[in-house]
């Protein structure tokens, strides 16, 4: 048992008023708000006290973020002047995948470090595309303790990027004949990566690297983004190099524990060159997650690489495909291909793209990943609204293009990951699974929409006549 892993969270309030979900529509002409029973004064959540502040900067009028939608102001106003609308800015927040609801929850987690909790049952659709058409199992009577109280085993979320040795060889004198490969165990099946699709700069990378260090995980980084400010965290970085440029970054390789090489035909030929720079280094190859990814993985697994890193797009979709498949299917394909070839145990698989919520982490692992990376989620933890203005060369509404407080930034990220880890523990605990390693590929402990429909409704209603989710 490794030592108890605990993520210290600490409230880190947002710097800017987050885009609220609801806004009240009220006609002030009907009321000056000086009534003794004024619902603005009596709001249970005191959301109206700062109401004027929202209007005080014309940079952008902000609506009420804190409104909890209890409808009491609407229903109790003596003049009945209140109505409610959805904040138009909330409506257009993010995109279909990174929807406003997800952004809101990520902000909440980065702010508080807490697991989002709500009442009144599940509010969403019965089933939805992607990871939302899959449920995880639970066990009625077995649940490992999540925090190791009373000396019991706790749930272990570690994973390894180490080199996999299928067997040990011994000398005749029973001493170990094979070299013991370096072991790199990370406490959480999650790595960091800042997607170049959006903004990358030093102000963002430093707090993230610091958070990675605090959490004991690693962050992928392109050599062109590395600045001296990142040097204290060199040990927590994975440089993403190419066949062409790795020689220029020898120093970086020397300081790292893992290095990633972009996939290219014959890439295996440079492995030794890198190992010569730093013998202990663990090698990872970055592969686009497209239709050839599975066969490429099978090929590369035989070349002595330690881990593979697959890049899906920012929505977790297959690359270069007319009707792309989702991460769920893609992970499954790669994993099963390696299982089929009996080489799954030899390699570690990391997947990037579309990991937006804690459950995605668990579900991707169930599908067969060893670990995933958080990308946009990290930026969102720093209040990014995914508005895309930076792509158009416009200013950032939350000033991520300017220096930010490093302590605050890393606290927000640590909070987010702390909340994610807690949620992962909840899921694993409910399943009665004690180790993240055991979760990998364990589809038997999950339920898939198509299977449930077939097994439970098939006998009643016959054959499904619609494809997909219907």
């Amino acid at each position: 048992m490794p030592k108890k892993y605990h993520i210290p969270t600490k409230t880190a309030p947002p710097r800017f008023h987050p885009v609220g979900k609801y806004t009240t529509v009220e006609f002030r002409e009907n009321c000056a708000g000086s009534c003794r029973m004024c619902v603005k004064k009596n709001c249970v959540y005191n959301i109206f006290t700062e109401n004027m502040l929202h209007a005080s900067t014309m940079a952008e009028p902000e609506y009420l973020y804190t409104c909890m939608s209890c409808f009491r102001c609407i229903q109790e106003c003596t003049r009945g002047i209140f109505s409610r609308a959805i904040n138009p800015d909330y409506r257009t927040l993010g995109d279909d995948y990174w929807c406003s609801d997800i952004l809101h929850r990520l902000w909440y987690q980065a702010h508080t470090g807490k697991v989002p909790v709500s009442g009144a049952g599940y509010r969403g659709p019965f089933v939805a595309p992607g990871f939302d058409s899959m449920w995880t199992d639970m066990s009625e009577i077995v649940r490992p303790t999540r925090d190791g109280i009373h000396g019991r085993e706790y749930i272990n979320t570690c994973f390894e990027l180490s080199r996999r040795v299928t067997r040990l060889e011994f000398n005749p004198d029973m001493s170990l004949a094979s070299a013991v490969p370096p072991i790199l165990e990370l406490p959480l099946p999650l790595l960091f990566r800042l997607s170049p699709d959006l903004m990358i700069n030093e102000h963002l990378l430093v707090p993230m690297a610091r958070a990675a260090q605090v959490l004991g995980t690693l962050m992928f980084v392109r050599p062109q983004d590395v600045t001296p400010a990142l040097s204290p965290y060199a040990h927590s970085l994975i440089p993403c190099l190419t066949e062409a440029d790795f020689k220029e970054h020898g120093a970086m390789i020397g300081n790292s524990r893992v290095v990633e090489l972009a996939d290219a035909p014959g890439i295996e030929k440079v492995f030794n060159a890198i190992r010569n720079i730093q013998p202990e280094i663990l090698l990872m190859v970055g592969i686009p997650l497209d239709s050839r990814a599975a066969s490429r993985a099978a090929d590369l697994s035989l070349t002595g690489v330690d881990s593979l890193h697959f890049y899906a797009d920012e929505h977790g979709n297959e690359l270069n495909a007319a009707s792309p498949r989702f991460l769920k299917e893609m992970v499954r394909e790669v994993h099963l291909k390696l299982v089929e070839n009996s080489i799954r145990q030899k390699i570690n698989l990391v997947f990037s793209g579309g990991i937006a919520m804690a459950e995605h982490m668990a579900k991707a692992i169930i599908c067969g990943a060893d670990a995933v990376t958080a990308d946009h989620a990290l930026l969102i933890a720093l209040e990014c609204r995914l508005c895309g203005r930076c792509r158009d060369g416009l200013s950032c509404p939350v000033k991520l293009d300017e220096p930010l407080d490093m302590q605050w930034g890393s606290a927000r990220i640590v909070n987010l990951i702390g909340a994610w880890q807690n949620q992962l523990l909840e899921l694993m605990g409910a399943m009665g699974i004690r180790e993240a390693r055991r979760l990998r590929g364990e589809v038997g402990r999950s339920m898939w929409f198509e299977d449930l429909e077939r097994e439970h409704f098939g006998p009643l209603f016959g054959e499904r006549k619609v494809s997909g989710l219907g």
Partner: protein
Amino acid sequence: MNQISKQQQLPEIKEVPSRFRNTIGKFTIKRSAACISCGLCAELCPYGVHLRYENYSKPMRPVEHKCIGFECRQNEYYCIDRCPQKALTLRLNPVLETLGDFRWPAEMLLAHWEMAETGHLPVVDLEYNLGNSGGGFDKIRFKLPDSEKYLDVSDEAMDLSLDLNKRRDGRPERRLSLPCYSGGMSYGSMALTALTGRARAAQKLNTLTCTGEGGYPEEFIPYADYVITQVATGLFGVREQTIQYAPVIEFKYAQGAKPGLGGHLLGDKVTPEVAAMRETVVGSSLFSPFPFHSVYSVEDHKKHVDWVKAVNPRGLVSVKVSTPTDVDMVAVGSYYAGAHIIHIDGSYGGTGAAPDIAKKNIAMPIEYAIPKVHQFLKEEGIREEVCFIASGGIRNAMDVAKAIALGADGVVIGTAELVALECVRCGNCESGRGCARGIATTDHELGRMISESYAEQRIVNMYMAWRKQWCEILRQFGMQSIRELVGRSDLLVHLDYLDETQRAQYQPVPRHRMII
């Protein structure tokens, strides 16, 4: 015979208006400054939308939830056209956009508020049978009935009862008048007045309510014969005495809202009263462990059941579990441990606060679990010896009927009762002072927003409205007892399993773009 006559004494319906000054309606009516207070609208409207009190010349703000909307246009009393000043405007109420969610859309909420207010099905055109979730119950429909089979009997002659003890083990053969009873909500999670109101409603309706795992407040004692004592993993407030009070003792292994997790009550809600009941410290968060630490097998489980049976010789035993992949095995195991009632709680339900990740992702929806368990119990030959209860995301009368047709004997209702008490499903049950609407709160000020008689009558009204719907379904299929409906999945269709022409015969799945 005695049972039947008892059942036919239906509780009285009494109008219980909203606790709030302004009601929310599907339509909104605005009266402009052009109004000359002539009072014609108040004279015209037969639905009581426009009220005008004696000696107060101005009509009051319209009672919007009573307005039937644009379909009124054809009537000669259509206020919008008749107003001499053209001072009235009718619109769809834009606030509905911000109300409700995929499972409980705004109209379903409004309809249930109306049922709880009047005891009748709404006059206003509201969709209250189907949600917007795009699957499960929302895609399942009753088959088009054969009009020749229609059974013309009155509501009073209908048998909607539910037998809880089918084991014939000498314990009481308890029969409820409704095919449903209400779910566990703990002392501490809810305003005591609301809880007591539920118990009073259960007595009036001859059904049951459940303590949840927060102990047994003495306010329940007058209604003890209608209150289930829950024994959950935290064993909060469980005493021999409280087990002896109860006609049914429920073991809660898991709950649908947070399958695989124990219950939890955040510190804010642990007031001195709650702490005393639960024998704990004021303000400290309470987490129930998961699972029962003394239960690791069916044998362990049986030991517990035997213990309860010994403590209360006339009590029935219910076992509440969630919906893992092997839910059918769990159900059978519970039967062998001696349970009278097997209660399966699906993943999408729940009333109290739970981690969002658990509500959404863990365990399967109840729609899948019901046929699975029903079938397995049949195969094991014990289907007729247990009372199979389903719950978790069963929202309305139609869902209840569908669940029964899928194979359950009855269901447990939670959220709908809260909606009857004017819950808006804002989901903030645990934040700050708790429910801003005074339902799920232990805050002294907020808790005063509900009176026992209000809670009691609103719940009675809602079930009486539901009863009308059930009776109509039974009549359409020529049945006189809801027991005839159990497991009749042949009466159901699922839209995704029909070809297009067949599907066109049924009401389509509501699909609105929602922002939740």
